[in-house]
């Protein structure tokens, strides 16, 4: 009986007893959700256009953030380091298309997936050689990102909201909006979607596979840079940023691998629900650290009823 009470009643009485705390939990969940969506978007874009599950997305976040900070540490001003880093990510996209992807056209998906593991290992080595393994401070203030906080006092309590987090949320919304606009309204964007729908048909109407691949890998690089700046400003820039890519996997399972909307909604759902579960059920009843598995449980539950994810395309193969 006590157990049922602690599962079904107590969490809700706790929420009602401290609504300011609940608001704080919801805000933190929203911020986490936006960050998860950002990482997942990088995967979705590449998968949409090439059916490649990009294992290197995590290390691209590290590499982009390290390049930005590394350039700044070598005396390049922040305003210049940002476009230069984008330039490096563009060169990387071209190099990946030329050296890795082009020779593997028409190979099975698993070969291309393995190739992205190779890219990961290469970027780990390259990053370590050029920038070293030490933790570096993200140049948050130098990039003009505010670092103060707002304190609100609702219901007699307090809610603290970091300006940095607000910037991250607004930045992510702008980035996603621009991306959706690009994908839906521009010629190139439509070409990416066409490739995602049917490679052969897209090629037959003259869409250049190599141009589109360079483009999507570059956009994934831009997203990686944005992700690196936001996450790096929380705890520094190091190779540890790579593991945050793991947080995107349940988002992709939940939202669907091909859906930009799925990545956004899935990320937000996981961010908010895992935070609520950890605080009100996980920590009091299960000893905490439920965030490590909660998102996967949620995704599995969804997959039981919708194997293609919430927003994924249902693929029917005729034989």
């Amino acid at each position, binding site marked *: 009986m006590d157990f049922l009470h602690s599962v079904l009643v107590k969490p809700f009485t706790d929420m009602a007893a*401290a609504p300011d*705390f609940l608001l*704080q*939990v919801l805000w*933190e969940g929203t*911020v*986490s959700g936006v*960050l998860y969506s950002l990482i997942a978007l990088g995967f979705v874009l590449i998968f949409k256009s090439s059916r490649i599950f990009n294992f290197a997305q995590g290390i691209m976040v590290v590499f982009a953030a390290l390049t930005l900070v590394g350039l700044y540490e070598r005396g390049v001003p922040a305003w210049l380091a940002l476009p230069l880093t984008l330039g490096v990510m563009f060169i990387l996209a071209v190099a990946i298309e030329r050296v890795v992807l082009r020779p593997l056209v028409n190979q099975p998906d698993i070969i291309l997936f393995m190739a992205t593991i190779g890219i990961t290992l290469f970027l*780990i*080595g390259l990053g*370590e050689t050029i920038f*070293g*393994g*030490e*933790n*570096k*401070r993200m140049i948050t203030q130098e990039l003009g990102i505010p670092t103060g*906080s707002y304190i609100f006092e609702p219901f007699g309590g307090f809610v*603290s909201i*970091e300006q940095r987090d607000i910037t991250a949320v607004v930045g992510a919304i702008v980035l996603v909006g621009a991306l959706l606009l690009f994908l839906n309204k521009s010629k190139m964007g439509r070409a990416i979607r066409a490739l995602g729908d049917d490679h052969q048909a897209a090629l037959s109407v003259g869409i250049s596979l190599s141009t589109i691949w360079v483009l999507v890998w570059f956009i994934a690089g831009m997203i990686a840079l944005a992700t690196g700046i936001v*996450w790096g400003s*929380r*705890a*520094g820039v*190091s*190779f*540890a*940023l*790579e*593991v*945050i890519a*793991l*947080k995107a996997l349940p988002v992709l399972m939940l939202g669907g691998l091909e859906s930009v909307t799925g990545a956004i909604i899935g990320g937000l759902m996981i961010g908010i629900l*895992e*935070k609520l579960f*950890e*605080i009100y059920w996980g*920590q009091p009843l299960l*000893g*905490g*650290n439920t*965030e*490590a598995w909660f998102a996967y449980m949620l995704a599995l539950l969804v997959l039981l009823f919708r194997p293609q994810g919430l927003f994924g395309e249902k693929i029917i193969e005729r034989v």
Partner: protein
Amino acid sequence: MQTMMRMTALSAAFAAAAAFVAPAALAQDSLYVPNLSYRTGPFAATGTPIMNGQRDYMTLLNERDGGINGVRIAYDECETGYNTEKGVECYEATKANAIVTQPWSTGITLQVLPRTNVDQIPVLAPGYGFSPMADGKVFKWAYNPPSSYWDGASMLLNYVADGDLSSLNGKKIVLIHLDAPYGREPIPLFEKYAAEHGFTFLPIPVGVTEMQNQSAQWLQIRRENPDFVFMWGWGAMNAGALTEAARTRFPMEKFLGIWWSGHDGDMAAVGEQGKGYRAVSWNVPVSDSPLMNDIRQHVIEKGLSQIGNQSELDWVFYQRGLVISMMAAEAIKAAQEEFDATVITPEQMRWGLENLNIDEAKLEELGMSGMVVPFQTTCANHTGHGGGWIIEWDGSKFERVSDILSPDREVIEPLEAAEAAKYAEANAPWPANDECSL
């Protein structure tokens, strides 16, 4: 003709013999000291400066002294990425010629511990690993000088209680820890203390994927409103926790860490906001020591180091790396002297490790006064229990703010003995160190 054929056959035999003997002869000129290091992966930020320090000390001995008593040190790293499976692979790949192994994570240490008994290679795990390894009568091949995690936990508790543990009655202490064998290591001792002294102890785990976004953990800390938070963090978890503590305005004077959570590189993420954060540490940087001068002259200026920038030389972790290699080098020296040999065996190295006497005089002789707490190991005491200092972040660097603290051995020893016995029973037949009469 027959004579000629015999001569030719003899020459061929000599050539073949030489081909086989040559590598063995080369191996005789050096002592192979492998290190299961990690300069990549999520924990590289904390691993790299320590590995740099370890490498540089061995380079110094080779460059300045021509090795140890004329034998060069073949220091080698095998990259594990702090991954237990890779760590075991590295151990297997390097064990053939190793005189000692350094597993560099509590998880890897626990995995290689039974193997080293069979392979008869001593494990050097300074300040980490399984705390009951201190019991040399049970763990014949494992060494964790100069202080164990349980020593660290005891020192932190006594420090915040100002030596009177009864003053903790009714208080609440949170342990925010990496959800790994390392992070969970001090929990049994904290629970024992909590039961004895009437304080509430609450462990809060942080998973590897949550290291950089600990908002849930710090929301819980806000809700629990503890009197003190202790941290057993590593890698990006340290910087993540410090950032969240600063963000949630948790008073830094109530936040203290173990020695692996006292890293200058992590503090850079919070800078001034981290002012007042403290950690217990068995080493402190002494940048104007004779040893550091030698390191600059013989290693750094010759371009033989892998350090990122010069400021790393003053870091707690870089100089801890130097101290750790010093322990290995002093064990080699002790064994060479005892067995009147220059090239020693793993068994002789084991003797060296359990006869380390790093006292003030020895530190003075090595040019390392004040860089590490003095300690002494024996066949029964593989840790030395030298204690540690409290170091405090002043906004730009760590400063020593206490005298040497000592662990509460009366409380720890029975738990060590019980856990060591439990381990031996669970891994039976476990060979005891019967030669030790202490």
